[in-house]
């Protein structure tokens, strides 16, 4: 078991493409670190550099207290699970799991015992004599996991291992992978483009964009205090509503389109730097759950919009609405869900399922200002104290 430490790691390909920029990241022993970002953000390249499958152009990579920049994958004592599992189709499950041990020339009885123990952990005992072609997607995925954990590596690397599974199985395997990782307690780097996977599985999540690390924090911190517009837009489903706005005199209010939303003292204190934006444009972020329907006659900041579409999920209503403010798009940050939201309306809110609302209505939301986020339009950095 070991830690992984990346210090200003860069990857520049022969054609000049700079895939990873100055990535510095520490993964603690036993920690589950998720690298997340849109396609082409460099997350897989970063993982492959840790694995030793890609050369590091500059920077230092350490596993434990060893610098491993120039070590072969074999010498790094890592195990990797690939997106397509890469099981050897001509070998049985037992042979697949035991292949690495066989290469280490482990005595047969010890090898068999270790393979059996791994199979038990993963519930694969009855499939040991089968070939990968005879297994279901979930079973293959478990064999790939088994092949990795049987070696008791110092570091576990996973490259989108669940993306080939159907939605239901993916949810099931998500929990299973987390459970196995906790059980073996090995530092793990997990790459995914699915922010829900990242949020549910990671102890910490590193968000990458165009090869640059945007923020690395626990899922809750990423959600509550995103460092910039990109992270705010990328994390959360449905995505955060981001609007161009302008800050009122003394930062006591913010104007979103034609509507003025008063900011209580708690907000101006929490976002004290907002005062320097008085009279200037900012980007306002509002999570869908921070826009409940306003009770009639209630006081407090409100936002009114036209309902385009209502999706009843049982536990809540997802209301797609339009206001007269310009929505901000963080380039590349939108997952499929968020894309749908921008097509059907300019904003999304989650409201109580009993709210009487239908498409074409005009709706007033009570703005939960405590959840409001502010970003500098110049560069997109979050505005706090």
């Amino acid at each position, binding site marked *: 078991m070991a830690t992984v430490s990346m210090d200003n790691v860069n990857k520049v390909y022969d054609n000049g493409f700079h895939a990873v920029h100055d990535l510095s990241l520490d993964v603690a022993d036993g920690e589950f670190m998720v690298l997340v970002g849109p396609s082409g953000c460099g997350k897989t390249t970063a993982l492959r550099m840790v694995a030793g499958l890609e050369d590091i152009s500059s920077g230092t990579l350490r596993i434990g207290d060893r610098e491993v920049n120039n070590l072969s994958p074999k010498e790094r004592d890592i195990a990797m699970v690939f997106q397509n599992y*890469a099981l050897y189709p001509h070998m049985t499950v037992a042979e697949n799991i035991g292949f*690495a041990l066989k*290469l280490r020339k482990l005595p047969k009885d010890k090898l068999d015992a270790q393979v059996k123990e791994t199979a038990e952990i993963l519930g694969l005992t009855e499939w040991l004599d089968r070939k990968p072609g005879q297994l279901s997607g979930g079973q293959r995925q478990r064999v790939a996991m088994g092949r990795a954990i049987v070696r008791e590596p110092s570091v576990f690397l996973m490259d989108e291992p669940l993306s080939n599974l159907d939605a239901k199985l993916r949810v099931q395997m998500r929990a299973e992978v987390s459970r196995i990782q906790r059980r073996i307690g090995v530092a793990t780097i997990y790459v995914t483009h699915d922010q829900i996977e990242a949020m549910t599985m990671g102890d910490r999540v590193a968000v990458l964009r165009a090869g640059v690390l945007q923020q690395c924090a626990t899922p809750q911190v990423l959600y509550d205090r995103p460092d910039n517009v990109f992270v705010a837009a990328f994390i959360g489903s449905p995505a955060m509503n981001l609007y161009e706005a302008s800050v009122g005199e003394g930062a006591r209010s913010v104007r979103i389109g034609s509507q003025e939303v008063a900011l209580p003292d708690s907000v101006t204190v929490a976002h004290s730097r907002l005062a320097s934006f008085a009279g200037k444009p900012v980007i306002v972020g509002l999570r869908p759950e921070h826009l409940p329907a306003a009770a009639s006659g209630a006081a407090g900041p409100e936002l009114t919009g036209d309902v385009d579409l209502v999706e009843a999920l049982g536990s809540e209503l997802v209301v797609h609405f339009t206001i007269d403010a310009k929505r901000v798009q963080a380039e590349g940050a939108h997952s499929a869900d968020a894309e749908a939201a921008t097509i059907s309306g300019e904003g999304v809110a989650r409201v109580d399922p009993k709210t009487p609302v239908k498409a074409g209505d005009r709706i007033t939301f009570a703005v939960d200002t405590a959840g409001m986020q502010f970003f500098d339009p110049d560069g997109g950095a979050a505005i706090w104290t």
Partner: protein
Amino acid sequence: MRNRKRTGWHRIINGVNIAAFLVVLFIGLPLYWLIASSFKTPLGIGVDPPQYFPDPLSIANYKSAFVQYDFGIYFRNSLIVTLIATALVLIMGTLAGYALGRLPMRGKFTMLVVFLMISVFPEIALIAPLYVVLYHLHWTNSYQALIIPYAAFNLPFAIWILRNYMLGIPKEMEETGRIDGAGPLRTLWSIILPQALPGIFTASIFCFTACWTEFLMALSFNISNNYRTIPVGVSQFGTIDVTPYATIFAASVVATVPIGILVFIFRKFVISGLTSGAVKG
């Protein structure tokens, strides 16, 4: 849509089955005639109306091929030349196919185009220059006179088949191997080759058949009876006045046996080799 139930004779007599039957007839009838005639007496072969089934059934032609003529020697020579040439082609073809299919290399495409050009080069144009080379090497009337040219002529096609097959194997297989601790040779041997088996079998059958039936070079380079292969040996059966058709038939039947066995054993692999090589490449 109307769902017509196919029952009784409809199930057996339909377009596809009739077409398949005609194809089998087209290929199978000459083969049947060859086998049946090989068991006829020399007189039985020419009678009118023809004998559809040998009567009397005789194995005299087989005896004659081996005793009266040197079919045993020809068979041995064919086997030696074909097996060694095929082995050479497979060894070199697999390594070259792997390199051209999987390794980062400059000029890969040019090399493949050159190989393709070589493989379609007319053999007859090379007979004379090759003869001169072999003559100066004192290699005429030898096994290597056929083994080397056979290997050279069949290698390009084998490389193409194997390269396409290797391309279809996901690169993660090798990467997993590297992480598991396998070196390049171990990766090739334990991970890549087992997955390329259908391609290897396909290449080997094509190569084996081509060498086994090759006539022109065998006729030109090995004049001595001791180094003749089956196609040349059998063509020399008989005298100027007499052509022993029945014996030639018997020899031909024996000559098809090795190819028949090879295809029968590896038929499953060959079919998958032909298709997957094609679509994945």
